[in-house]
């Protein structure tokens, strides 16, 4: 099963060739085509997964648990596909939206190394290897966020970097303690050891360090402050890419760790996760409501939505985990969609300030429709993707008697709706403010709509074909809840 290494080798090869060639013209083609190839690889791997079950690769021929093992299970494969789709869409978007001061070849070099880090984090079965992929991803994102070298980008970059480096160190410290206690770093081996372990309290130090580290990356409640103070500074293509991928890698690792081997002391941890989830939802949603700048609204809104994913993990039933996975992929697509739409609004009007724009519904009904699909998907309107994802989470919450968090999740839905309707009203319905109407407006070409159209279509299709998506994520949820298949696959039992 050597094809498992392709999601890593492909972006690596592309990045290296971009470094050697350094042609901006060529990069314009390599970006979208390369990410399309990644998507093809991800779909091929998923096809293989459906045929053969969970696939593993012992790198360097060292058998598990001694070597680094790469694992593609249902969750990994799904995340690979969605992140490759996001990468493809962002490549199309970046081609039209990168400003002169950002050289294409340099952007795409870090774009592909970022994707390599993200893919690596999704498929690795080794804790230290996960740390390495996190660092690959982080270093690329540090460069991407400061690529324009403007004052506020550097400032946002420093804030982003400060908290994320702290997160990495806590991750490494947790990993060291974990190795000291168990003597292994292989996730399946850890699961074998820790799932039968009755000295739960010994694991708490590692669990806390990992939770804080991934909490910073995933931007959960008391640890999210780096996100809203940096995400609105870089080029909109970079922001959209980060919004779609980075925090979700944090959520993915939280789900992976807290289902596979950190399952001790469940009452305490699940309560904590639920509290954090509720506070994340509410504080993100409230903050989003107070801004009038699209990128800031949407940045806070990312945080609010992370709460739902953590909620699924905290309820911890197969349905809740499936709901969390469904919500994650829906959110990656819809969130990127709204950021891309914000970029297009700014492209036409020249500003992200909602108070200075208006009248877009009459001027550009196509954009209005393309915005409303991901926006309503986020707000949870049927029949778009978000409705089913939220429905699963709420149903799981009621089934397991977690009424409080379910109520919070429902009420946060109104905050989401408020934010989306605010953008809709201000940018599309309201008349263009008089004093600003002299600005020359840019006409969009068909290629400008492409990225948003693809994301809107994906969101809509996920809603219309919800039963098949549901079947897949339920399988994922069962696998996460009872990971013996994962463990057996790694040890080739």
């Amino acid at each position: 099963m050597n094809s498992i290494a392709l999601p890593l080798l492909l972006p690596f090869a592309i990045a290296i060739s971009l470094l050697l060639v350094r042609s901006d013209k060529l990069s314009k083609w390599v970006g979208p085509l390369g990410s399309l190839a990644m998507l093809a690889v991800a779909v091929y791997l998923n096809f293989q997964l459906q045929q053969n079950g969970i696939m593993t690769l012992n790198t360097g021929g060292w058998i598990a648990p001694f070597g680094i093992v790469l694992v593609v299970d249902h969750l990994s494969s799904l995340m690979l596909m969605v992140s490759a789709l996001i990468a493809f869409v962002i490549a199309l978007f970046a081609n039209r939206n990168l400003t002169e001061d950002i050289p294409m070849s340099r952007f795409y070099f870090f774009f592909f190394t970022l994707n390599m880090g993200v893919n690596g984090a999704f498929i690795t079965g080794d804790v230290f290897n996960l740390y390495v992929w996190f660092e690959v991803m982080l270093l690329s994102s540090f460069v991407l966020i400061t690529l324009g070298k403007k004052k506020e980008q550097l400032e946002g970059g420093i804030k982003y970097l400060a908290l994320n480096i702290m997160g990495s160190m806590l991750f490494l410290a947790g990993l060291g303690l974990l190795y000291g206690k168990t003597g292994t770093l292989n996730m399946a081996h850890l699961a074998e050891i820790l799932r039968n372990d009755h000295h739960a309290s010994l694991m708490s130090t590692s669990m806390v360090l990992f939770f804080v580290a991934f909490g910073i990356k995933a931007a959960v409640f008391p640890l999210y402050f780096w996100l809203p103070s940096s995400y609105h500074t870089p080029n909109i293509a970079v922001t959209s890419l980060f919004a779609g991928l980075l925090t979700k890698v944090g959520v993915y690792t939280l789900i992976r760790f807290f289902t596979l081997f950190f399952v001790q002391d469940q009452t305490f941890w699940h309560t904590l996760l639920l509290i954090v989830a509720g506070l994340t939802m509410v504080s993100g949603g409230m903050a989003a409501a107070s801004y009038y700048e699209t990128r800031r609204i949407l940045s806070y809104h990312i945080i609010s939505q992370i709460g739902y994913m953590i909620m699924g993990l905290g309820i911890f039933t197969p349905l809740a985990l499936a709901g969390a996975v469904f919500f994650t992929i829906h959110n990656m697509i819809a969130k990127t969609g709204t950021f891309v739409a914000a970029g297009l609004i700014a492209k036409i009007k020249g500003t992200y300030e909602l108070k200075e724009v208006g009248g877009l519904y009459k001027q550009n009904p196509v954009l209005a429709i393309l915005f409303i699909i991901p926006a309503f998907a986020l707000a949870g309107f049927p029949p778009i993707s978000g409705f089913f994802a939220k429905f699963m989470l709420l149903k799981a919450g009621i089934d397991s008697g977690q009424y409080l968090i379910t109520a919070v999740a429902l009420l946060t839905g109104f905050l989401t709706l408020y934010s989306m309707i605010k953008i809709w009203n201000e940018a599309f319905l309201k008349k263009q403010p008089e004093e600003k109407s002299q600005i020359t407006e840019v006409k969009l070409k068909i290629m400008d709509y492409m990225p948003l159209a693809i994301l809107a279509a994906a969101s809509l299709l996920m809603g219309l074909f919800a039963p098949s998506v549901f079947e897949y994520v339920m399988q994922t949820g069962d696998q996460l809840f009872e990971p013996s298949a994962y463990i057996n696959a790694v040890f080739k039992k």
Partner: protein
Amino acid sequence: MEILLAIIVGVLYTAGVYMLLRRSIVKFIIGIIFMSNATNLLVFLSAGLVQGNPAFVNATTVDTSHLADPTPQALVLTAIVIGLGMVVFILALKYKYFEITGTDDLDQLKQTDEHS
């Protein structure tokens, strides 16, 4: 020996946190370096220390239990390299920021958080 290293880890973390909380960006970076080295030492210590028995095995080695565990050593090598890369990047970023703004004061970094 382990006790001594454990104390050093603690001291480095303390110094690192103290430096992180200073107002100067350079001191902040020094804090990052301290904490990164403290973490590296912690990982190095994780399997315990074995003196004078590196993990070299040949065909005649029967019992490996008295040898030092090579995994944390491999881990810490990787972590040092990564930490170095991070510190170099943050120094470059700080330099660029200083070139543009001429300030080393963390309190000046308020612009991206201001409510419009």
